[in-house]
Every structure is written in structure tokens, then in C-alpha cells.
């Protein structure tokens, strides 16, 4: 990573942190957008608290999705679960045609407003990319490597933990990254069903026709997503570099 890239990342992170902790510092920039003496900076709650609860729900949902999706991915690639492999592939394909908002909206009448429907939507929709990538990662392990592992007397569990999972790790991480990004977006929409999150700022702006709110909400969410995406990408590249895969530094 070049020095410029490092500086850019640190600056973006710093900007985000300063903005959510002391948004009033930036009031001058948003004031021209707030018509009719409306407040320029979101004043119905702390941006920091919203950011943290936004991140918390994404984190919890991703952990839950990862645990289940990886377990399912392992199950359908074992001899006992092979029968479910073709169907599970089709299900992932079909599942991805469901927009996340549909999952969110259907959950509301079932569990009520608030964090619960958001968590359910995040959890269910987050399963798909992780499951898909776990399958891809586990089925891509070269048969030669597995043959060698078997030939050296590794049992099924040792092969899974010492060979298959470590080799599939970069692909699984890519799935988790995709899942996190989708979840960040879905959690933003979660504010329409009263989950605490940064979407609140945008929704408040839309309701009061305050473009300053809409823009600052949009910018914070966007910056957060880009930084998290980038950070997870770095982790993945570190994992992949260990395996000597070709890694595109620009990707």
C-alpha cells in the first residue's frame, strides 16, 4: 500500500470520527442547505449513538449469519449432507432475487417494529453471500491437496480444520464482506421500522424536507460503508497473500 493510500484512509477515518462526535463543527457547510431556519445538523439524537447502534446490529447479525452460513456450508459439503448440495445452490440463487427490503417488510407484521425485524432481515439476507462463498471456497480446494491429506492419515475433522477451512478462508471472508455491506444498507432502511440507526437522519430529513439532514446522513453512511469495505478487503488480502493467490492491489 502506497503512502498516499495510507494517508487517504487515515484522513477519511479521522473525518468520520470527528463528524459523528462533534457534528456542530461542520454546521457551516450544511447551513446553506437547510431552508427556513431549519437546523443544519441533526438534532434529534446523538450521531455517535446512532452510528454505534447501527454498527452493533450489523455486527451481531453478521456474526449470527456467519455462524449459521458457514455451518450449513460445511454440512452440505460433507458426505452426510451431499444430498442437499444441489438444492442449496438453487436456493441461494433464488434467495438473492429477494430484495432485502421485502424481507424487512414481511418481518414487521410478524414481530413488530424496532430492532427485531431489522435483525431478522439482516440475519436472513446476510446468510446468502456467506453461504454461497463458503460453498465456493470448500468445493474449490484442490482434490490433490485433499488426497494428500487423506493419504497422510488425517481424519475427516483434521482435514476440515487444518486443510479445507484455512484454504477456503479468503473466499469466506469475501462473502462476509459482501454480507456486511448489504447489511449496512439494510440497517439504514431499518430506520423506517424504527430500528436505531443512521437511517434515522435521512428519514428525518425526508419527512421535514431538510436536505441538510438527508445529505449528512447519506455521507456518514456512505463513508462508513466505504471504510468498512476497504478495511475488510485489507484483511482478506492478508489472508489471501499467505496462500500466494494473485491479489489485485487495486480491487
Amino acid at each position: 500500500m502506497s503512502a498516499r493510500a495510507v494517508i487517504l484512509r487515515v484522513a477519511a477515518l479521522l473525518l468520520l470520527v470527528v463528524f459523528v462526535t462533534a457534528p456542530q463543527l461542520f454546521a457551516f457547510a450544511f447551513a446553506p442547505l437547510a431552508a427556513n431556519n431549519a437546523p443544519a445538523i441533526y438534532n434529534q439524537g446523538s450521531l455517535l449513538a446512532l452510528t454505534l447502534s447501527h454498527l452493533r446490529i450489523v455486527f451481531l447479525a453478521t456474526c449470527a449469519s456467519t455462524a449459521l452460513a458457514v455451518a450449513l456450508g460445511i454440512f452440505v459439503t460433507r458426505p452426510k449432507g451431499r444430498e442437499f448440495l444441489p438444492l442449496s445452490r438453487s436456493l441461494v440463487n433464488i434467495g438473492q432475487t429477494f430484495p432485502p427490503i421485502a424481507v424487512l417488510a414481511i418481518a414487521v407484521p410478524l414481530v413488530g417494529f424496532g430492532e427485531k425485524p431489522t435483525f431478522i432481515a439482516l440475519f436472513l439476507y446476510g446468510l446468502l453471500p456467506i453461504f454461497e462463498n463458503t460453498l465456493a471456497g470448500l468445493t474449490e480446494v484442490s482434490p490433490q491437496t485433499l488426497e494428500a491429506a487423506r493419504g497422510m492419515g488425517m481424519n475427516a475433522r483434521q482435514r476440515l480444520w487444518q486443510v479445507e477451512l484455512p484454504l477456503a478462508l479468503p473466499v469466506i471472508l469475501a462473502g462476509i464482506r459482501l454480507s456486511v455491506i448489504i447489511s449496512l444498507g439494510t440497517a439504514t432502511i431499518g430506520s423506517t421500522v424504527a430500528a436505531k440507526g443512521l437511517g434515522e437522519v435521512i428519514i428525518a430529513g425526508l419527512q421535514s424536507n431538510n436536505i441538510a439532514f438527508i445529505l449528512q446522513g447519506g455521507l456518514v453512511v456512505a463513508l462508513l460503508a466505504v471504510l468498512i469495505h476497504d478495511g475488510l478487503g485489507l484483511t482478506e488480502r492478508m489472508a489471501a497473500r499467505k496462500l500466494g493467490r494473485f491479489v489485485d492491489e487495486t480491487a
Partner: protein
Amino acid sequence: MPTLRPTLHLDRLGSVIAGLIGLALFASPFVTYRANRIVSGEGRLLVDALPPAGALITVVVVLGVAFCAALARKPLARLAAASLGLCVIFPAIGISAGFVTPAGNTFARVSPAIGFWLLALAFALLAADALTRLRLGPWGRLGALSVAAGALALLLVSGAWNDLSLMKEYANRAETFWREARQHLWLALGSMLAACLVGLPLGLASHRVPALRAAILNGLGIVQTIPSIALFGILIAPLGFLAANVPLAAALGIRGIGAAPAFIALFLYSLLPVVANTMAGLSQVPADVIEAARGMGLSRRQRLVQIELPLALPVILAGIRIVLVQNLGLATIAALIGGGGFGTFVFQGIGQTAIDLVLLGAIPTVALSFAAAIILDAIIDLTRRGAHDRD
């Protein structure tokens, strides 16, 4: 004498589906009855939700499908069983709605309950598994899709479902429904077309000029990362400014809030898959093929049109498939900023906690994405096959 064991082999997946069917049939309500649109409802088991004869037929067929799922191994037999099951429970839910609603009561609402959804899920899983194992070709898949679409259309047109709450929601806003449908398609397909018009040349340029590649892909990658509603928000400010200060923009109907930011956002999201896949498609054309074309005296333009683009077509189409499915889903969010589309019903439904209204928006969206995915996958297969035939 041969033992019965090999013939009575229990299929694992089939057993799970049979279990699901049993659960749906005997332990879950088939429909929910509500005195009016807002109050919470009460569940009715299948045996109480249909006239005795109808209930008997449905239970017998559904159990038959469950046995078939657990014991039959041939994909065709399982597909037939699943189709039969769907052909029975889909009309049954309509009949049930008429049966449960007290005569003359116009406020009462009947919706499919968990039992119905579980049955539909079980049959759909069985059908999906059978179809996966049958490995249908592109025409076969398109055929299966048209049969399913035709059956659905028949149910809708025949009025068999008119007593269902979902269809009552539709009847109350039929005109709005079709207007939002047109808006949804315009947002999703229009932005896709615009992205193709811009993205194909951009992809071609990045393929030819490596210096452009990283910059374009990185820029579009960042756009792709930004959650939809945030991007809508970011676009609203400049568009609002444009509308307020440029009379022409306002005359063209551009406003800060509304369809314009949604359209532009969908367009921006669509660029990455189109550009990246155009590049990937062009770069995987074998170098010796291009060399041979040069050797035979094809001009640069002829090489592009006659060799490179046809060979890259399946990959480019795969990018368009991603865009189409993604846009059909994302267009629902446009309603949040007044952009219209099926999302209008979803968000209204959330506001009123009316699940049937949510479904009125969600089901067409999912159906459209699903159909789009199947159709484009089939087209991609057909172009691939074409490319092989030319070899």
C-alpha cells in the same frame, strides 16, 4: 426373494420435506381470519378452512405428495408430485377464503397463514430440487417458467383468489398498482439501458487503455459500496440545487426528491457490473483468435464487431443479469424518496402494519426478479452454446 429395503430407500431431503408438510398440515393454521383489515387474526387449520369434501381432497393429495417426496427418487416423479401439490393448494387457498368469510361480510379479511406458506415452501423446494437434478436446458427452463407464469395468470384472471385479503388490497388500488408497476419497470429497466449505453463504451475503453482501468473500477467500486438510501440522499442535494436554480432542469421534471435521484443512483450502481464484465469478456477472448483475425486482414472495427464482441457476449450478458436483478430489487427503495414503484406499497404496508399491502409490493418485485434471472440465465446459456458451435 429380493428384500424390500433397496426399493424403500428413504431420501434425506425428501424426508425433511415430508416432515415440513406434516408440520404444515396438522400443526399450523392454513389461513388467518380477521374481522377487519387492522385487527389481529385467528388461525384456522386446513380441516376447518375448507368445505369437508375440499378438505378431504386437499389432505389426501398433500399427504400423497409427502409420501412421494420421501420415497420416490426419480426427479420427474418428484416434479410431478410437487406440481400436483401446488395445483391443489393454490386454488384451495382461494376457495378457503370464500368459505371462511361470512356471507355478505365485506370487512372480513382472510390471508394465507403459516401452514399454507410452509406447504408452498415444501412443494417449491421439492420442485426446485427436481428441476436442479433434471438439468434442464435453456429452452426447458424457459418452458417451465412460462407454464408457471401461465398457471399463475389463470388463477389471477379467473378470480379464484378474489376473496383473499391480498387481492382485496389490489382491488382497492388497481389503478395505482399498474401505475407503480410501470414506474418500477421504468426505473429498473431505464437505468439499466442507460448504464449499458454508457458502460459498454466505457468497458471497451478500459479494455483498450489499461491506464483507465484501475481508476474506473475503483471509482465504480466505491459507488457500489454505498448503501442505496445513502446514495439517494447524497444525490438529492445537488439535484435539489439544480431544480431550484436551473429552470430547464425543473421543466424536465427534475426535483431533489422523486424519481430523478433514484434513477441516477440505479444507473450508477449498474455501471460497475456492465463495465467490469465488458472488460472481463473482452480480455478473455483468446489472443490467437484475434491474431488470426488480424492475419486475415480484418480491420480493427471488423475484429471488434465480428470477433471480440460476439465472443465476449456471454460475460457481458452475465453483467446485465446482475444489474437487472439488482435494479428490480433496489427500485423498491425509490419509494422512500418519492420515486414510486412497488416499494410504495411496501412502505405504506409497513406504516399501516398491513402485511397484505406489503406483500402486494413485495410479491411482484420478487416474481419479476426471479423471472428476469431465469430468462437471462437461459439467454446466457444460449449465447454460450452459439459461441461453442462456431468453434
